[in-house]
């Protein structure tokens, strides 16, 4: 008989363990444990009590568990009690070991017979197995979380790798942005994403340049966003991650999204170099959705890559522009160098082969022309060499502003157009040679870009510790070029008629920078005015003393 009883108990315990093994999480293990224990013991009622509260129950209609009665039964190993609708009920209670040392009890009750000693032993073993299964489920749940986290990281890494690859392969910027938007949506799930950039034509406004999860109609609706508005506008203005939960309740968000019950949004600034130029924004319509810290980290990584793509694209664009300018420069220089050289060679050849046919006047005119062409060639070569030098101003000394102006105008008076206006009697600290060169370039530029017979005025005055040299001519600045672009190499206005390769103002700007001065240009009515600002000798001394 003992063997049979032992066999039965072992079998029941094995079945009990198998049933718990199939449960997926801690709650399911506890539920299965109470359920199977009750079925094994043919008990009508069962319950797991944790700190006096019913965690799981069997046999009672949902929410109608007699908590007081169950706690009374849980307090003793075996008891007999009256249960409404069931009558006299024999109960058994054993401990459930808890990981947090809270008091756990497994309680069973049945109407048929009292629990025997063998059954009590089996029940204790079941409770022990249940505790182990709960611990195991908790460990597995932790492992699952860890695995999920590793999987998330792996997916993020794969996604970022693909984006980095597309950046390094110089994929078009639009494609990189699209990949980032798609990646953002797939990584966090149930979301929409868009990238906005500051639009230079509309200051203070961000424009959508890439998106995922939106219809064309929606993109039209949300294409423009004011800086400071919504998650994206705030991320741009505040240069930090902005997370908005409960989107529908928040003021200052995008009305379109609010009307469509967007639940949450997360936005990050996107940089070009160290300058914020746009935002990466994701949002979700899923009820109750928020973005976890892990998801926020993933989005920060994607935003970093958007910044990297932008900076890289800008660098690439500059490289391509420089290459194009270099190609153009070579073509123009070869043409500019060859033209006077061809003229000079032609004249020399004529004099060599047909000297007896050339009159003295013609010879003089030809030699004079060849000399001028030679001068022109020399000037062009000087200009190119100057442009190639890194630091141009070398000797900084005190000089009278009037001397700088007079030296620069020397030899230009015969043109009749260049007029020297009032120049203040002040001393400047500069490289006089470089300053003269700058002034010379500005005057040449004025001659080249102003109507014939219109005056070119040169003047100088002191202003706020600086000497201001102005070169003014009639004309308009080229509308297609910004002031910065005017001083870039190989940039010329589309109306330029003078010979040259677009290096004059670039050289002037570099000379100016090298001697610690500044140069700018403004349109004043129908006149263009270049201003060279040189430090006054006194001001520099004061600044040095300070």
């Amino acid at each position, binding site marked *: 008989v003992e063997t049979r009883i032992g*066999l*039965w108990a072992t*079998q029941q315990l*094995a*079945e009990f*363990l*198998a*049933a718990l093994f*199939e449960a997926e999480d801690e709650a399911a293990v506890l539920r299965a444990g109470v*359920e199977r224990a*009750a*079925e*094994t*013991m*043919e*008990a*009508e*009622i*069962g319950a797991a009590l944790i700190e006096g509260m019913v965690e799981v129950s*069997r*046999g*009672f*209609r*949902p929410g109608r568990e007699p908590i007081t009665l169950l706690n009374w039964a849980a307090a003793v190993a075996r008891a007999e009690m009256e249960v409404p*609708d*069931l009558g006299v009920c024999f109960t058994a209670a054993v401990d459930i070991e808890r990981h947090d040392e809270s008091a756990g009890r497994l309680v069973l009750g*049945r*109407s*048929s017979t009292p629990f025997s000693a063998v*059954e009590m032993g089996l029940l204790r073993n079941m409770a022990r197995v249940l505790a182990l299964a709960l611990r195991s489920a908790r460990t597995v749940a932790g492992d699952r979380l860890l695995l999920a986290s590793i999987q998330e990281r792996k997916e993020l890494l794969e996604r970022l790798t693909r984006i980095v690859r597309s950046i390094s392969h110089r994929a078009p910027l639009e494609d990189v942005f699209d990949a980032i938007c798609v990646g953002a949506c797939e990584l966090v799930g149930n979301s929409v994403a868009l990238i906005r950039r500051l639009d230079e034509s509309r200051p203070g406004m961000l424009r959508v340049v890439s998106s995922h999860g939106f219809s064309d109609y929606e993109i039209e609706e949300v294409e423009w966003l004011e800086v400071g508005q919504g998650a994206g506008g705030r991320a741009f203005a505040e240069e930090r991650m902005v997370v908005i939960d409960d989107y529908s309740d928040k003021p200052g968000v995008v009305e379109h999204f609010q009307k469509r019950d967007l639940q949450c949004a997360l936005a990050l600034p996107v940089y070009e170099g160290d300058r914020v130029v746009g935002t990466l924004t994701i949002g979700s319509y899923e009820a109750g959705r928020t973005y976890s810290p892990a998801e926020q980290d993933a989005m920060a990584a994607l935003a970093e890559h958007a910044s990297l793509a932008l900076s890289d694209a800008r660098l690439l664009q500059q490289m391509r522009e420089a290459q194009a300018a270099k190609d153009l420069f070579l073509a123009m220089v070869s043409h500019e160098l060859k033209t006077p050289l061809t003229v000079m060679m032609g004249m020399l050849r004529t004099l060599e082969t047909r000297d007896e046919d050339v009159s003295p006047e013609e010879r003089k005119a030809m030699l004079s022309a060849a000399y001028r062409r030679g001068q022109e060639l020399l000037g062009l070569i000087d200009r190119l060499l100057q442009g190639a030098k890194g630091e141009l101003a070398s000797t900084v000394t005190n000089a009278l502003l009037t001397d700088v102006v007079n030296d620069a105008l020397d030899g230009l008076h015969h043109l009749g157009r260049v007029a020297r206006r009032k120049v203040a009697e002040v001393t400047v600290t500069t490289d006089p040679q470089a300053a003269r060169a700058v002034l010379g370039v500005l005057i040449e530029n004025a001659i080249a870009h102003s109507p014939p017979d219109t005056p070119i005025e040169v003047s100088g005055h002191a202003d706020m510790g600086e000497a201001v040299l102005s070169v003014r001519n009639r004309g308009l600045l080229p509308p297609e070029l910004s002031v910065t672009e005017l001083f870039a190499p190989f940039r010329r206005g589309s109306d330029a008629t003078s010979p040259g390769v677009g290096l004059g103002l670039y050289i002037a700007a570099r000379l100016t920078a090298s001697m610690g001065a500044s140069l700018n240009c403004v349109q004043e009515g129908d006149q263009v005015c270049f201003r060279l600002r040189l430090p006054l000798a006194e001001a520099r001394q004061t600044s040095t003393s300070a």
Partner: protein
Amino acid sequence: LSCSCSVGTGSRHGPPSQPACRPALRQAGQEVAGVLEREDPDRSHRVLLLLTDGLAGDQQEILRGVYDIAGFAVPLVGGCAGDDLRMRQTAQLCDDEVHTDAVVAAGLWSTGPLGVGVHHGWRQVGEPMLVTSSSGTTVTTLDDQPALDVYLDRLDAPEPARTDPESFTRFALTHPLGLRRRADEPDIRFVGEADFEARTLGCIAAVPQGGLVWFMEGDEQSVLEATDAACADAMRPLDGRPPLGLVAFDCIARRGVLGGEGIRTEIARLAALAPGSPVAGFYTYGEIARTSGAGGFHNQTLVVLAVG
């Protein structure tokens, strides 16, 4: 006596033998038990009558769902619809609709007592075996050997039953498995089908891994004795008063043991135990009877509901 019906469907979400189906089966049970929400203070006795698809999977899971809602206070009775051993599809009726893969429940409320009795009459044969591998209602190995091979060899099954599905099912009708339980009578599991490629056995209810099972046998005498015992248990709550009627849920496997003459004898004995009362019933692929404990699913038994 009054009645209210409910139906739960959609329990089949994949092979019914697999554990993945269990949540749907349980949910179907919970849904049909909602019929008990009706209260009838004038009729204090009640029972929930369940008619299920016998091929839908682990029937005990349906009863667990019912018990979630009904609790210990409501006895359960009923059976699983069959298809005359074709093992393909069964049908359930509710109101004027025909369902498949469904559970139909009827709440019965009565002014008089309602009694439920259940017995099977099968005996253990030979040494027990350990269920070394099973999943849901599929038994894969017994004592670490392919379950089908152990079953066929230990029972010295005839040649047709070793290759032909219908012959196997006919043979298995009289050779169920017995699961050791606390009660004196072991739980019976009807072996409904065999997978001749995977060498597994398919049962109507779950056979837990780790359990001890026996092959069972019975004869006309033992089966008829069980009929008497089930009927007596059902009528006990009536305190000697004649029942208004008896409803029997008889496993189709018992028909195989009794044969044509034995069936007539069984019906005559039922009628004699309730003289003058109408007797109705049908053959099932599994029987439901819960008056105590939290279980309630049986195989190859006779369940009798006595309406007092």
